[in-house]
């Protein structure tokens, strides 16, 4: 067998590297240098990140005048590649005739693709900035209409972004 050992010889450590102590000193030196520079980390639970309007967080329903904008057309449910959304329509005496009697998003299925928002003809479902999604059980991951409704005032950034770039 003809094995090339040249590269292996090159990577052998030198004597000073083998005794290790100078390398520890060099590493501590680097730490010391960084200590006096600007801090890049964030103290997460106390200090939160505010995403921009383009961020795709938890999908929510837009609440306008105390009611949902949604008319339960079911397009979000149809387009959802992960089948996360379930909509059941019902009739209302209002002018818009139709409203969602049930609107559930299974957050374990959701992949945050934003198709639901893109397809919505009423601008009723948008991606929010909410990124803290922790569930204790499978059942609690299914969000109902009340949990999904967010007042329109809190969603201005996203709506502005959609109007400009959608």
């Amino acid at each position: 067998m003809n094995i090339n050992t040249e590269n292996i010889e090159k990577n052998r450590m030198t004597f000073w590297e083998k005794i290790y102590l100078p390398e520890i000193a060099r590493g501590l030196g680097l730490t010391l240098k960084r200590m006096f520079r600007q801090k890049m980390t964030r103290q997460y639970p106390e200090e939160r990140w505010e995403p921009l309007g383009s961020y795709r967080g938890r999908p929510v329903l837009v609440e306008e005048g105390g009611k949902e904008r949604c008319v339960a057309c079911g397009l979000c449910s149809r387009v959802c590649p992960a089948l996360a959304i379930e909509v059941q329509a019902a009739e209302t005496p209002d002018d818009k005739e139709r409203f969602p009697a049930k609107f559930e998003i299974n957050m374990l299925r959701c992949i945050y693709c934003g198709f639901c928002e893109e397809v919505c003809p009423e601008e009723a479902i948008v991606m929010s900035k909410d990124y803290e999604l922790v569930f204790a059980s499978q059942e609690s991951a299914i969000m109902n209409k009340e949990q999904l409704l967010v007042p329109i005032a809190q969603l201005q950034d996203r709506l502005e972004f959609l109007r400009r770039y959608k």
Partner: protein
Amino acid sequence: MPHIYIDGKRIETQSGKTIIEAAYDNGLYVPHFCWHPELSVAGNCRMCLVEVGLPKRLPNGEFETDSNGNIVVSYMPKLQIACATQVADGMHVRINYDKVIKAQEAVMEFFLINHPLDCPICDEAGQCKLQEYAFNHSRGESRFEETKNHKDKRIPWGPNVLFDAERCISCSRCIRFAKEIAHQDVLSFVQRGDHVTIKVQDGAKFDNNYSMNVIDICPVGALTSPDFRFKSRVWDMSFNESICMGCSRGCNIQIGVRNNEILRIEPKTNMYANKYWMCDYGRLSYYKKINGNRVISPTIKKNGVQTEVSWEEAISYAASILRKYKPSEIMFVGSGRSSTENNYALVRFAKNVAKSTNIDYYERIDQSFADNFLRTNDLNPNSAGCRSIGVMPSSEKYSLKNLPENIKNGSVKLVYIMDEDFDLDDKYIQALRNTEAIIIHSTNHSKLTEIADVVFASSYFAESEGTFINIDKRVQYFEPALITTENLHRMGMKMSRLDKFGAHNDRWTQKELRNCRPTWKVLSLLASHFSVNFNYNKAEDVFNDIAHNVGSFNGMSYRLLKKHQGIVLGKANNPDPVIHNYESHYMKPN
């Protein structure tokens, strides 16, 4: 026979036909809204405009040709409507032609001027002719900047039809249907121009037996069903073909299912049975019975209480009861509501296993139900099936009529009832309380399931394969639309989208999965307890057995029944020709 040329293609046709009919017979398609093959020609949508011309003739009568030898056609300067222009020998028609396409786009633009952008809330979305044409024959943008006309919404025309005036495109199909098919001439246009709308005559209601057909033929969502309204989007449902069980007409239907629940029943075109129509009773009455109050697993009576048991236990218990009685003491009751396959299995079981000839079925005759169009007086969908395979007693003494008397005098001690609940008269149930033993196959909970010793959970026609034979002796095949634990593994792509892909922790798949079986299957298992092997693995095996043994069925198979949309008894060698069915607009599979 005259011939015409459509886009250069030569077509043989009959004189008197219109261009649209000639095109449709040959698989060519002219866009249209108001034309319907069963209705008179109104010609008011202007969507079917085509360019029509005849070849130029020279003074000596010969066709004029250009320098390449092609016939010179002189087209009419204005476009003609294909639905009202009759064919003439040698006529040339252009459909896919620049001038025609521009006219179609202009017509679509006019339609869409006042049509509201209601699609998200409209039930028709997904199966809408206007939506379809807006993609295929429209420019995709509107030049109309003014405000749209607003009209009334949600006007009830009758108990089963809601009208939305804004969405109406004034095709007049519903008006013509009311006049010509339903013979209740109460609809008419009122006002003119863009204020035109349709009104029911003052004091009248659009409430005939066939009123809901206008919902199907309406090319837009102007007419909707209050029963189905907003229950589901059409693309979330599965549609499987079946036969109506309302009466013995055997209307072909499509069953719309989502989450293993029937939401809608609509007619399926079969020119030999129901054409394009069905009655409101068939659409609205019995599907709720299929959805609710079902027997979902076999039960036996233990200490006076119905107790759920496994199929094996229920069948062996039933076998032990059957062994106790002499053949003449057993009465079998078939059912005109059950498939021919089930009834045949019962006849075979009675004659070969129980050695009894006491077999009959319950007749449901209601003269008040019949009318002179589709509805018949026989409320059993399969009476003809029962008769043709011999569900009848050997002597008058053991007919169903005499059952109460036979029970009283002790000549009948065990009654074996298949898919029957005697809903029209109570005297049978009163009499059955005095029998020694009752074994029943039942789909729904009823008075009978309370008193029976063994209850086998039975599949509805919507949950199994089989055939019904209608009043004209037409054998018609139906396929399952709902899933049960029995057919789950075979339904596959026939299930609705949500049913197909649901997982156990999705709330939208928490449906009732019933542990019910078709009767022929239970009977063949029961027969094996008596060392008789029926050799039935699927409904088709039973039907092939019938086709082999019963003379009038000779030569039939499920494949032929599907191809010919049903075959009349005894005419398997000479079936009705296959017709290219006209479908106005329908849900395309997703």
